[in-house]
Structure formats: structure tokens, C-alpha cells
């Protein structure tokens, strides 16, 4: 389709697109009035995955299926995607913010000689140009940016855009463009899995509980994990807690950690330093529990309780259990 908005598919590495693609496709379709197309580079796509993309609103799926595409390497992906883009001339190329899609979008933009806007939180058409909004300076300001020419390459912050309502039965044509097998300089050695907490991924979770210095030690995070299991939340930490060695860095929320934007963020013993706010201030609802009534986090919290978190957390877990058992 001319003037299509491409959506680069992020999958679970087992042939299924991640839920965040409902947001990317939903936003692409909204901005382009229904011209969203999915571009999926993978070693193996599932039929269910293709159906899912169509139901979310992709009018077409460009399926580039090749063993060389997994694990992801930018040098391999960029050639295949750029070649297709040169032929199909999309108007925009969207991808979710994930570790690899961030890199891929940057490299693809360089190959195509166009601009990149990373980690966007809003889009609007201004006549014939697209204007993107993105947080800058630790989220203290919002920058509105625009491109000199198309395709407009952008990555979208998860949990910010309204996901497409899946429409069962909606179909999309699947195109399988053929191309030469891309060569790779990088040689895959191994993948080391993290010890799974059994809880959702921090950047994908709809509810995030965060423990700060007030947690007093690594042994106490179990009380947050108990609550997390009740309400299906992820558990993160402030930089103070990570720097103290209480939690691994992958759990850090903030400027030198993960940026999250859940429906509900609850901070326990988190003071709310600027660098922490940078990573969570676009959360929809913010709850703060802290003994210190002067803690800066109360200034951006929707709901606050000034009390000892060790009294609040067990009580809150109990109340959540009661609520969800109803």
C-alpha cells in the first residue's frame, strides 16, 4: 500500500508477536487512517502470530523468514529491511522500544539517510508532516520533533499508546519477499537466561512495584514479590537499592536503568530522586508509600500514604487479595 506505516514486529523469539505490537499497530493505524502494515523479521513465524497481527489491524504482513534473523543482529536485519523499504517506500517505520528495536531503528534510519525519533510518547499529523513528542532531559521537558523527509522512523514507548482492539476474523495478506541470505560478521556464542522471578518483565508490566532505600535490605523484597504475585505486577528498584547491591541492575528503574510507563506504579520507600522520576514519571497512576512526608515522590504521586512500608505492604497485600477474590 502506498504511504504505509510499517510496524517492525517484536516477538517472543518463539514465533509470537509481543503484546506491545497491539500498541504500535494501533497507533500506526490511527495516525495513518488505517494504513498500518507489519514487517516481521524472524527465523520462524507462527500462523497464530500472523493472525494476531491481522486482528490488531495490520492490513498486510511482510514476512521475512530466515534462520539468519535469529538471534537478532542489526547488521543482518538492516540490509533486508532497507532493501524492502527502497522498493515499497513506506511513509513511516515504527517499532516498540525494546533493547534490540531501539538499535535496529537507529541503524535502519542511518542506512536510509533519514531521521530517527526514539522513545516517543505521542504522534500528531501537522498537515503533511508527522510531529512526534518525546521526553528529554530526564523527562523534565517534552520535545516535539519533525523529520526532514520520509520514511519517518520512530520507536514507541510501551504502555503509553492505546492498544488496538483485536478484531477476530480480520485478515491480512502475507507477503514473503525473497532475498539473498544476509551475511553476518557477528557470531552467536550463547544465551544466558536470567533466573526467572516468575513475574512479568519490568518494561511490559501493567503494574510495577518499586522498592527503594526504605526496603532496608535485599531480604525484604520478598514482601513486594508476594504482593506482585497477587496483582500480577513486576518488581523494580531504585538506583539507591541497586547500587547497594540489593537487586541486580536489570531491575533498576530510572535514568541509568529501565524506563517504564505502567498503568499503576507503586513506590515503597522510594524517595523520588530526579533520576528515578526520569524512568517512571509517565506512569498513569502513581502511588507512594514513605515514612518521610517530605519525600519528593509525594509531589508527583496521585495517592500517598505517609507510613512505614513494613506495616503498609502486608496490609495492602491482604486487601488486594480480598478485592481480587471477590
Amino acid at each position, binding site marked *: 500500500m502506498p504511504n504505509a506505516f510499517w510496524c517492525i514486529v517484536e516477538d517472543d523469539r518463539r514465533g509470537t508477536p509481543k503484546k506491545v505490537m497491539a500498541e504500535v499497530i494501533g497507533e500506526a493505524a490511527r495516525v495513518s487512517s488505517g494504513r498500518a502494515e507489519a514487517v516481521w523479521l524472524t527465523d520462524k513465524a507462527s500462523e497464530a502470530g500472523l493472525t494476531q497481527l491481522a486482528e490488531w489491524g495490520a492490513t498486510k504482513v511482510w514476512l521475512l523468514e530466515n534462520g539468519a534473523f535469529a538471534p537478532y*543482529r*542489526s*547488521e543482518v536485519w538492516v540490509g533486508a529491511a532497507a532493501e524492502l523499504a527502497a522498493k515499497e517506500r513506506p511513509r513511516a517505520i515504527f517499532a516498540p522500544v525494546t*533493547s*534490540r528495536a*531501539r*538499535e*535496529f531503528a*537507529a*541503524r535502519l*534510519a*542511518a542506512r536510509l539517510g*533519514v*531521521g*530517527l525519533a*526514539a*522513545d516517543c510518547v505521542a504522534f500528531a499529523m501537522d498537515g503533511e508532516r508527522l510531529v512526534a513528542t*518525546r*521526553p*528529554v*532531559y530526564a523527562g*523534565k521537558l517534552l*520535545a*516535539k*520533533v*519533525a*523529520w*526532514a*523527509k520520509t520514511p519517518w522512523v520512530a520507536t514507541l514507548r510501551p504502555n503509553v499508546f492505546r492498544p488496538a482492539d483485536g478484531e477476530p476474523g480480520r485478515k491480512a495478506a502475507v507477503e514473503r519477499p525473497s532475498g539473498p541470505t544476509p551475511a553476518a*560478521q557477528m*557470531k*552467536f556464542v550463547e*544465551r*544466558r*537466561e*536470567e533466573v526467572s522471578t516468575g513475574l512479568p518483565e519490568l518494561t511490559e508490566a501493567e*503494574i510495577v512495584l518499586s522498592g527503594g532505600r526504605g526496603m532496608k535490605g535485599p531480604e525484604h523484597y520478598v514482601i513486594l514479590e508476594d504482593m506482585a504475585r497477587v496483582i500480577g505486577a513486576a518488581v523494580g528498584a531504585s538506583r539507591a537499592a541497586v547500587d547497594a547491591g540489593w537487586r541486580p*541492575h*536489570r531491575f*533498576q528503574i530510572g*535514568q*541509568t536503568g529501565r524506563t517504564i510507563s505502567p498503568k*499503576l506504579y507503586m513506590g515503597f520507600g522510594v524517595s523520588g530522586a530526579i*533520576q528515578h522520576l526520569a524512568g517512571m*514519571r509517565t506512569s498513569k*497512576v*502513581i*502511588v507512594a508509600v514513605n515514612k518521610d512526608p517530605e519525600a519528593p515522590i509525594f509531589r*508527583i*504521586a*496521585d*495517592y500517598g*500514604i505517609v*507510613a*512505614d512500608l513494613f506495616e503498609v505492604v502486608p*496490609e*495492602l497485600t491482604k*486487601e*488486594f487479595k480480598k*478485592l481480587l477474590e471477590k
Partner: protein
Amino acid sequence: MRILVAVKQVPDTATQVKVSADPRVIDTTGITWIISPYDEFAVEEALRIKEKRGQGEVVAVSLGPERVKEALRACLAMGCDRAIHLNDPAWSDADTLVTAKALAAVVRQEAPQLLLCGRQAIDDDMGAVAAQLAELLGWPCAYWVMEEAIDADTKTVRAARQVEGGLEVFDLPLPAVLTAQKGLNEPRYPTLRGIMGAKKKEIRDVKAADLGWAPEPPQLSVVTLEALPPRPPGRIIQGDVPTAVKELVRSLREEAKAI
């Protein structure tokens, strides 16, 4: 082996940032400038590689106005051997791609075996320049690196990158680009001797003409910078803990519809 480290000078996180009279840029009055924290991890890693091998050269490079010299001086104080400053008004409205092109021209001149960058700069958080450099140079690139080891015999670097759910390890032929993630190392503080020694080290000014640079417009431009819309005022829930918790759960359910 020569290692190039690209760094960016950014406002300190704690600094108040305001929009200037020109709504596309910030007011730089009173701002404290620092090396972007991820870039410090990159500098530290470059120095460790050199120290481990007992030989080599670490060159810091940065693009920006005159004040950027302070950041480069700090890199020299940490132990970098010399520095290159891309210092020309021609780059004043550079986007990531223009920046990457200017840096790529320097990389071609210096011909390092390894290029280290921070994962992203904490001012505009674009996180694009390293990947774009890799593209322009045709080099392999490992992002968000948590560990690395150079193998001089095979001329490769083994790098573990952080991905959702774990680490992925690759062998990259040199020359290659790595971006430093927090956790890679703990950056050193410059010693007094380092600070004194840095004054004698070279910071070479590079103008656009020195790179044979043809003026190039940015592909992405800021239309306006705006302050954040204020959040609606919050509410401190009063009462003893059991009462306050009940009220919080009720509010989250009924008002905020967040649970």
C-alpha cells in the same frame, strides 16, 4: 591497539532545565555539565582494556561547543591518552545522523580497532549514534554490553549484551562498536596526578573543513521544547495504616480504575 571512546557532555541530572527564549533549545545559564554516565562506563572499559594488555592508546572524542573541552579534560584525567574535539558551528544543529557522520569521519582518520560509546546520552536519550556509526562504518555492533573480552590472536571481541530476559554473547571481528551498559564496570575517579597530567595532554580541535565536511542539514529537528503538563494534584491518605490502606485500595479500584 587503539581504542576510540565517543563521549557526550550533558547537563547534570540534578540541574534544573528550562526552555530558552528560542523554544527549540534549553537555557544553558547556570547548568552544571557532566560526562553522560554511560559514556563514563565506556571510558573506564577502554582504560581497563589498555591496562590489561599493557599497551595501546585510548582516544576520547566529543562533538560540541567550547565547553565540551571540560568533559574531554575529565576523560584525560581518568587516563585517556589524548582527545579530539569536533568543535565547529557547522554542527550546532546536528541530529544523531549528522553527529554519527562527523564521528565516522574521525574514526576513518584514526583507524581504531575498537569504538566504545555509552548506551545512550542522558540529555536527549536518543541512543542512536553508536548504532548509526556502526552502520556508516560497516562494523558489527553489540549494544548494552555487560561484559567484554578482547582476543588479540583472533582479532575478535567477545561481548555479552543485555536483552530482555538474559544476556546474549557474540564474537565480533575487530574493528567493532560496543555500547556500554550500567553494570559493565565501576568508573574510576580521576586521581590528583591524573588531573595534573591531563593539563599536558593534547586536545586536538577538529573543524568541519578538516574532515572535508560538506554542510549537511539535520534529518530530525526539534520543533519546540515544552515543560511537562502538571500532574493533577495528588492526595495524601490519612488515618491509621489499616484504614489508609483500605481507602487506597478503594480509590485505586473506583476512582483511578487502576486495579
